[in-house]
């Protein structure tokens, strides 16, 4: 039986094994094929994880003047890269799984970051509330709650924010939803920028932002007993600790997203993405399912936002603009909507470009390619470059770098999800109603 199944394998696999044989890697190839299924599934991920987790150790040994990219990101930059990737994976739930275009994800980032600011800083001088906080003096005023709890609070609060935003707006379809989310993405940053005297009450400290925000840590007791770091900021290798924690956060997010995708809820999301009307007809509660997608997407955004606020020791309104939403959306599109690994890889690449990659590439180009005196500032045109990337991707590879298998089929067969109705269908006019736009015209009862 196993032999016959081997023979029936797809041509892609046959091609790959042929390649392996030709390249003289035959022994290794057959060995790989003989490994049990779970190993083959998890080994690449584990190898990647090991490579990522040990990054701080071998970073110093990497060449410092690498062509094109100049140097590899520092551990500090790597933290930011991972956190943004986490947000992209969260956004992938909304856009990739459920097919709801969200142009205001930055709102969730902001809510998460400011929750961390409220619950773990000296922002509210009027009160003094300590709970499991580390690294601050006992008489410090303000609310100081352990960052681990704050992460959960922020995630929960952001998820609630997602539900609040979602409930009234998710009845809308397609680009109307996109524009509403965009509106929220503009309102919330403006709110935090201006809410420094709401009837004399300073909620967000205006343009100055909330700073300093406490660092994570495990407290003195655990430090003495088990050796866990008491407070990240007070450790000499704080960046590494932040790095590993961020990696753990990302892994948790990925794990949750994979499990969610395969759950009943996840399958309902994908059904909605493929054909909303049919999904509704099959008994999927559309509103509830979409609201869940929103809440869960927001949940991860909030947790990541709170963590990055703790890492930066502050939440500032200038961090939250529309560009971030587009930037995260770019990661999802570039990676392939719905494909977790695609999004992770695109997220790492794009956030690296954002943090230091573009600047490095610019420096390298100016030093090696362009004649002196004709320098260009690559970093200045960062978003223009993203714009070009988006447009080119949409034209030539709309399914993304590593498309999810199912999503790819949808694109090939033509799906009827909320966002996949073609604008025009002038070709392929043999289907009934091919020329009409989307749904029938005329008054349609709302509800």
């Amino acid at each position, binding site marked *: 039986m196993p032999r016959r199944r081997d023979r029936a394998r797809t041509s892609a696999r046959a091609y790959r094994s042929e390649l392996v044989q030709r390249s003289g890697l035959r022994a290794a190839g057959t060995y790989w094929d003989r490994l049990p299924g779970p190993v083959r599934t998890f080994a690449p991920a584990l190898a990647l994880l090991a490579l990522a987790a040990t990054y701080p150790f071998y970073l110093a040994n990497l060449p410092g003047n690498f062509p094109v990219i100049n140097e590899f990101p520092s551990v500090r930059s790597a933290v930011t890269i991972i956190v943004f990737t986490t947000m992209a994976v969260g956004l992938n739930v909304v856009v990739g799984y459920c097919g709801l275009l969200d142009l205001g994800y930055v709102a969730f980032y902001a809510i998460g970051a400011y929750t961390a600011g409220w619950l773990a800083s000296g922002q509210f001088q009027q009160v003094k509330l300590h709970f499991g906080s580390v690294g601050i003096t006992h008489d410090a005023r303000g609310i100081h709650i352990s960052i681990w709890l704050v992460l959960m609070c922020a995630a929960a609060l952001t998820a609630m924010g997602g539900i609040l935003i979602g409930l009234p707006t998710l009845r809308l379809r397609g680009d109307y939803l996109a524009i*509403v989310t965009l509106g929220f993405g503009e309102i919330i940053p403006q709110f935090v920028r201006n809410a420094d005297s709401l009837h004399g009450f300073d909620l967000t400290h205006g343009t100055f932002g909330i700073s300093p925000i406490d660092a994570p840590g495990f407290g003195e007791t655990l430090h003495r007993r088990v050796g866990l770091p008491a407070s990240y900021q007070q450790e000499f290798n704080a960046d590494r600790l932040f790095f590993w924690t961020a990696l753990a956060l990302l892994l948790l997010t990925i794990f949750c997203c994979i499990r969610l995708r395969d759950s009943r809820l996840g399958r309902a999301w994908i059904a909605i993405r493929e054909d909303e009307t049919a999904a509704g007809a099959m008994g999927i509660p559309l509103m509830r399912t979409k609201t869940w997608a929103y809440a869960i997407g927001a949940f991860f955004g909030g947790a990541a936002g709170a963590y990055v606020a703790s890492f930066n020791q502050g939440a500032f309104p200038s961090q939250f603009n529309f560009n971030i939403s587009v930037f995260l959306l770019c990661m999802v599109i570039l990676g392939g909507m719905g494909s977790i690994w695609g999004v992770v890889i695109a997220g790492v690449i794009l956030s690296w470009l954002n943090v230091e990659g573009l600047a490095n590439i610019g420096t390298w180009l100016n030093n090696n390619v362009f004649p002196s005196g004709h320098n260009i500032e690559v970093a200045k045109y960062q978003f*223009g470059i*993203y714009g070009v990337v988006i447009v080119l991707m949409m034209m030539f590879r709309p399914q993304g770098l590593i498309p999810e298998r199912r999503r790819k089929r949808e694109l090939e067969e033509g799906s009827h999800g909320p966002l996949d109705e073609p604008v025009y269908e002038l070709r392929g006019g043999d289907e009934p109603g091919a020329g009409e736009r989307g749904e029938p015209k005329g008054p349609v009862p709302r509800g």
Partner: protein
Amino acid sequence: MIGLTQGSVYALVALGYTLVYGILQLINFAHGDVFALTGLFSSTLIVSHFNLDESSGALVILGGLAATFLIAMAFGAVVNATIELVAYRRLRSAPRLAVLITAVGMSFIVQNISLAVFDVNFRSVPPLISDANVFAIGGVHYNWQAFFVILVTFPVLVLLTWLVKNTRQGKAMRATSQDPEASAMMGINVNRTISFTFLLAGGLAGIGAVLFLVEFNIRYDTGFELGLIAFTAAVLGGIGNLSGAVLGAIIIGMIQAFNEGPFLWAPGSDWTRSIVFGILIAILVFRPEGLLGERTPEGA
């Protein structure tokens, strides 16, 4: 009354959104940036090429402005149609999401072109139109600058209405927006009609940009925010509906003027954006078809 002036500029931009949405069902995010690019271009034109300033003679100013309007219109139209030709045309049968995302991408590209050519500084033109009052009744002042804006906008709107309602090309536009396939079967060149719509939208944005310059200064990213406000206006009036866009724009302009005006209870200009987007969300939630629009399945 300032609201009416602001509203006129919004109306010209909002019409661009509504025209394109009506025919292609696409939120052309790049439209606001075309506006900014055209505005920057016109500021250079006025300052460096025509050398206009407040000391020039009245006729020279009027002639120069008229020439600027024409050139800005042509420029905006060409830029907008080029965007359509380069980016959107290939995606005619692609999923809607793809086109929408491409529009966001084009917005960034156009914004960066403005940044590359005109740098990050704000540009402005000298006060060409006198700011003496046309009339002042009680506390309400109305100056020539504001009046000029309306003086230009009104004929443009009349002309546009005539163009859409009474000409052959306008008829083709309306037909295409109703049913592209049937129009194609009736011998309408759909692609050319769409191109024409983009040209028209760009031209309106060009006029709006010059009018904007008369009162305000402009920067590479001015267009994005203004575009969003104008889009709100278009949605408020009922997207795809021309008179709705104008009405919505004037309402938004009024709201903005009241909000930023000398009223104690007004939250002030810091909150303008929040209020405008709050309105946008409220409309989309409660009356997605807008004030004058027809009901569409979008909001169902």
